């Protein structure tokens, strides 16, 4: 078997079987199931406790429409007409029969107002729902008082019809743009997470081999190129495995959640029409994801080979995480402000930012294929450059055990390399 495959399978399998991987994956799976079923979980706990609110209606004619309105908008809050005084209502709230009570009054112009009393007023949700319902009643009453036709009022409040149409045939329409925003957002998060989690895993892995001094044995039997690429690919595969688990669990959990609550409010398809994603966008997402991964992974592998102690890894890779964060902010500017600005265009050709920013431009604008081609070529070239620099300082790096600033380490390793 080729030594590259030996390193790849060994790294992949030993990481896959490691306790830390199993534990983090399980925690993430549990969180994922929780997040996708958050409505069901909240409903489950709230099932038996419908909020009951006593209503002391001083006007005598507001309770009925209010209760009807509440039934429409917030069925889980039950209003109960209460005929006795405020003191009795307070007792009932204290002994837990009611969540709270409210007194509805009316001024001389017939405009309703209310006072809401509860043991605690931290629950914005319940009082908010009631307030909203009462607001509706108020609007109704006020329009009636003015002698207006309610349907006319509805016309006043209805939103204006404002349609945007791009004259350039190739430009994206509003729906496509929303879609692109979501995909770019997802990709940004994905690359950010991947660099943070798996990139630092690679750096740590290599620094561990170096600090345990097993590296000298390894580089005496395998060439640094094979070793480095084997590690980068193995951790990449590990990441894909983990993502695959998340996607499968997330998807089936969303499906299961939906069948339980037919009108589930959490529904990703509201935001992203998965079935209608342009294949082009998906292909570019995959291409730029992998380009981004390999770029950052080789960079971090290189850094891992320079530090002498595992404890120094975090500090050494912080400039890289900072760069990814900067990319994140640039992407946010491009997404929500102006993807066509020259700043974004320039950034999309700089290797550190290309994977995300160029993909952002592909998603948001219609840019000519040659621009995409150039950025891919730049990416590939810089990855190859990084690999060749990386493997060169690799031998120097793994045989020197200096400490100090990154620049000093890099200089030291390059010196050893140049001399060898």
């Amino acid at each position, binding site marked *: *078997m080729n*030594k590259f495959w*030996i*390193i790849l399978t*060994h790294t992949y399998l*030993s990481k896959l079987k490691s306790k830390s991987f199993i534990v983090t994956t399980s925690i993430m799976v549990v969180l994922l199931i929780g997040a996708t079923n958050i409505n069901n979980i909240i409903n489950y706990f709230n099932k038996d406790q419908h909020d009951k609110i006593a209503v002391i209606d001083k006007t005598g004619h507001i309770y009925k429409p209010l209760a009807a309105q509440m039934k429409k908008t917030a069925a889980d809050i039950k209003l109960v007409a209460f005929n006795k005084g405020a003191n009795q209502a307070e007792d009932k709230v204290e002994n837990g029969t009611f969540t709270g009570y409210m007194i509805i009054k009316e001024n001389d112009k017939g405009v309703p107002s209310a006072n809401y009393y509860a043991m605690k007023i931290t629950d914005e949700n319940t009082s908010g729902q009631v307030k909203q319902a009462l607001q509706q009643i108020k609007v109704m009453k006020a329009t009636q008082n003015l002698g207006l036709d309610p349907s006319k009022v509805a016309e006043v409040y209805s939103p204006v019809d404002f349609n945007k149409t791009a004259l350039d045939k190739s430009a994206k329409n509003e729906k496509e743009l929303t879609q692109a925003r979501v995909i770019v957002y997802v990709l940004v998060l994905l690359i950010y997470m991947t660099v943070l989690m798996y990139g630092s895993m690679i750096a740590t892995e290599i620094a561990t*081999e170096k600090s*345990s*001094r*097993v*590296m*000298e*044995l*390894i*580089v*005496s*039997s*395998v*060439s640094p190129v094979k070793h480095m690429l084997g590690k980068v690919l193995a951790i990449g595969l590990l990441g894909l495995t983990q993502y695959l688990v998340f996607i499968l669990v997330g998807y089936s959990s969303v499906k299961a959640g939906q069948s339980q609550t037919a009108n589930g409010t959490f529904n990703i398809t509201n935001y992203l029409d998965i079935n209608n994603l342009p294949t082009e966008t998906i292909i570019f997402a995959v291409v730029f994801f992998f380009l981004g991964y390999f770029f950052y992974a080789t960079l971090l592998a290189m850094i891992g080979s320079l530090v002498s102690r595992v404890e120094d890894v975090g500090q050494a890779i912080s400039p890289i995480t900072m760069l990814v964060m900067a990319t994140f902010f640039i992407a946010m500017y491009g997404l929500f402000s102006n993807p066509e600005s020259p700043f974004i265009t320039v950034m999309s050709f700089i290797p550190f930012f290309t994977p995300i920013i160029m993909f952002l431009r592909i998603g948001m604008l219609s840019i000519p294929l040659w621009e995409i081609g150039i950025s891919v070529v730049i990416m590939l070239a810089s990855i190859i450059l990084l690999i060749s620099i990386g493997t060169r300082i690799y*031998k120097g790096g793994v*045989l020197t055990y200096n400490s100090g600033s990154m620049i000093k380490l890099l200089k030291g390793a390059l*010196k*050893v390399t140049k*001399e*060898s």
Partner: protein
Amino acid sequence: MMLSINDVVKRFGNYTAVDHLTLEIPEKQMFGFLGVNGAGKTTTFRMILDLLKPTSGEILWQGRKISYKDSHMIGYLPEERGLYPKLKVSDQLVYLGKLRGMAKSDAKKELKGWLDRFGVSEYYDKRIEELSKGNQQKIQFIAAVIHKPKLLILDEPFSGLDPVNVEVLKRAVIELKDQGVSILFSSHRMDHVEELCEHLCIMDRGKPLLTGSLKGVKGAYRRKTVFVNGDFNTADLVALPGVLGCRKDNRGAYLKIENEAVSQEIFQELAKKGFVRSFAIEEPSLNDIFIDKVGRANE
């Protein structure tokens, strides 16, 4: 000659680690590198293994440069010991064996054989960090020899081991040599080199001070020691021409002499003095030669 080092120089910046080293290392024998710390032994080994490139000169193994294609024929025990602390002994050595071109089943078989031999077969499923330092070193040694290399490089193989385990490892090394493995090893323990090596090279600050076969080195070393035990004062013997120094202990006096001829004059002198219980010319130990050569080079 199987390994020839031709006028090799290695500089790190302004520091010269190896200075014009030329050596011919014969096949199927044991070759010892001697030197104090920083003499350039490890750097030489790393250059032989192609981990470092010489600044000038070349190293040829069986007429060509060593590359990664040869890694299945080369075993290496680095001075800085290191294994994966979290990995089981079996996983670890199978992985390292595979990287040296072994099949998984062969690696397992060999590993079991070696563990049995060292009497530690129960370590097969243990993690490295659970083992004592000495036992880790045994595992490290197995990692260097598991793939039956033709050329074995051992950098300070016995340092940090107790005498019992030194013997165990020594026997293993001798056996490997008898099987036809060419072994290069470094040490600053002269007795080990004296016991094991046919050929040796004493290095000092990157320069070879002395190279050749053990017998040749010893024979060429003209300064010998004369041991005298008699019922008289030996102090005035130091005044004789050709006597370089005198050291006394409970058994008698040890006189350092310039060459063998001086011993005859001492003998004549002794005969006049009285009863001689013992008189002997002692071969210099490698330790004496080393201290003398390296000491003088540093003066």
